[in-house]
């Protein structure tokens, strides 16, 4: 006991107490994404030393079926503690009463016999995350490219001049659908024209940010461009078109142009 107490020397933390449970089962309930497992530890002899369930001596271990209530407790812990991978520790006394002692995070250890399978469950969980990360990376890359295009469109010109030119163009033509491929883009390829339109939306957005709060007329103009671009994109089914749509929606919602 004194040895354990020496650990209190640090003094920078408080301490906790809990009733000492005279346990017959020590349960580890494990959840990895959608996979559950229950492991029970028990005393193999009734010596006084084994009041600690995590002692290595005099303790046996077996796999037991996952009870519905255990699964519910894992799920509520996963949600409240924001853990996709967890190990709940429970003690059970001779009367069958259960006590949750702690909840361990993704660093939980696996018994040797389950390690290969359980690491497989972690990889499954990671695969979903990897797919999301890949999508995020692509969106970011397209955004960067669009921004670069926008910059090249304004480079060497006064932004006010560009905005005025665009405004004149739209006001003159009334129909927003026409300006894109004919005037600003030599190719009429659908995805490419959508890209240039997106670039223009970003460009106009940048100009507005630099200059002033957009007026209602400015808002309508950009909203019209956004809608036209979205219509074009909707007609195309490529993945890039889908991501561009996301980018456009983001830009538009940032500027509060699309209700």
């Amino acid at each position, binding site marked *: 006991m004194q040895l354990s107490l020496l650990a209190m020397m640090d*003094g920078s933390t408080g301490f906790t107490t809990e009733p000492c449970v005279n346990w017959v089962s020590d349960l580890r309930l494990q959840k990895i994404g959608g996979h559950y497992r229950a492991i029970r530890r028990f005393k193999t002899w009734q010596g006084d030393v084994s009041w600690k369930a995590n002692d290595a001596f005099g303790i046996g271990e077996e796999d037991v079926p996952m009870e519905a209530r255990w699964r519910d*407790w894992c799920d509520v812990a996963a949600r409240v503690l924001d853990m996709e991978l967890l190990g709940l520790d429970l003690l059970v006394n001779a009367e069958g009463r259960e006590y949750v002692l702690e909840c361990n995070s993704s660093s939980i250890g696996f018994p040797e016999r389950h390690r290969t399978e359980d690491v497989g469950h972690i990889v499954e969980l990671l695969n979903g995350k990897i797919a999301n*990360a890949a999508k995020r990376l692509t969106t970011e890359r397209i955004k960067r490219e669009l921004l670069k295009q926008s910059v090249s469109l304004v480079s060497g010109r006064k932004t006010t001049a560009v905005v005025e030119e665009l405004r004149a163009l739209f006001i003159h033509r009334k129909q927003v659908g026409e300006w894109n491929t004919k005037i600003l883009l030599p190719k009429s390829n659908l995805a490419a024209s959508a890209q240039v339109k997106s670039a223009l939306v970003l460009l106009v957005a940048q100009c507005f940010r630099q200059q002033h709060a957009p007026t209602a007329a400015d808002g309508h103009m950009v909203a019209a461009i956004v809608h036209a671009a979205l219509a074009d994109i909707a007609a195309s089914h490529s993945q890039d078109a889908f991501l561009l749509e996301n980018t456009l929606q983001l830009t538009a919602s940032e500027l509060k142009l699309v209700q």
Partner: protein
Amino acid sequence: MEGRPVRLLVICSNRENYFARFRDRKDVVVDQAPWLDVAGVVSFSDSLVVHLGPQREPFAGTPQTGARSFSPDLVLLRSFVLGAPGHDWRTLMAGFFHANVECVNSLDSFAFSVEKEKLWGLMRKCRDEDPTFPLIADTYYSGSRVASFVESGFPIVVKVGSASQGVGKSQIKDERAWKDTVRMERLFCSHF
């Protein structure tokens, strides 16, 4: 348009091999190291760099054989951030927080996992949301000065240390042993 592969960093000892798990994948690049081999973390305004030292017993044919830097998009934490004395990697973890890099488990869960009492508060929330959640009756004392009243009957268990891998727990069988323990704590705790 083909993007670059997703970079996955696994903080884990070599008892698990994540290189092997992703060997045939073109869409993922993996690096794996225990906290001990993480030399440092730098989080710039828009990128995260983790400097890794060579592993003492590396997996053959992997980057573990040498020192390297890795810029992860995703981090899997398979090791304690704060455990027994000497196992405190909070300054490294702080870099992941600063970068807001995606982690498994979540960054939030690690924020309170290193503070047992915060974790406990959320366990109470579990009990509030699901009344069948059988949380043990745990008491917190900020120090020995306030440790006079024992909520439940003896015997009790006193626990000191972090949420994972506590640094010590003792069974206290009666009032006299409790007083001894509390005095012992007062003796050793310099700030009381």
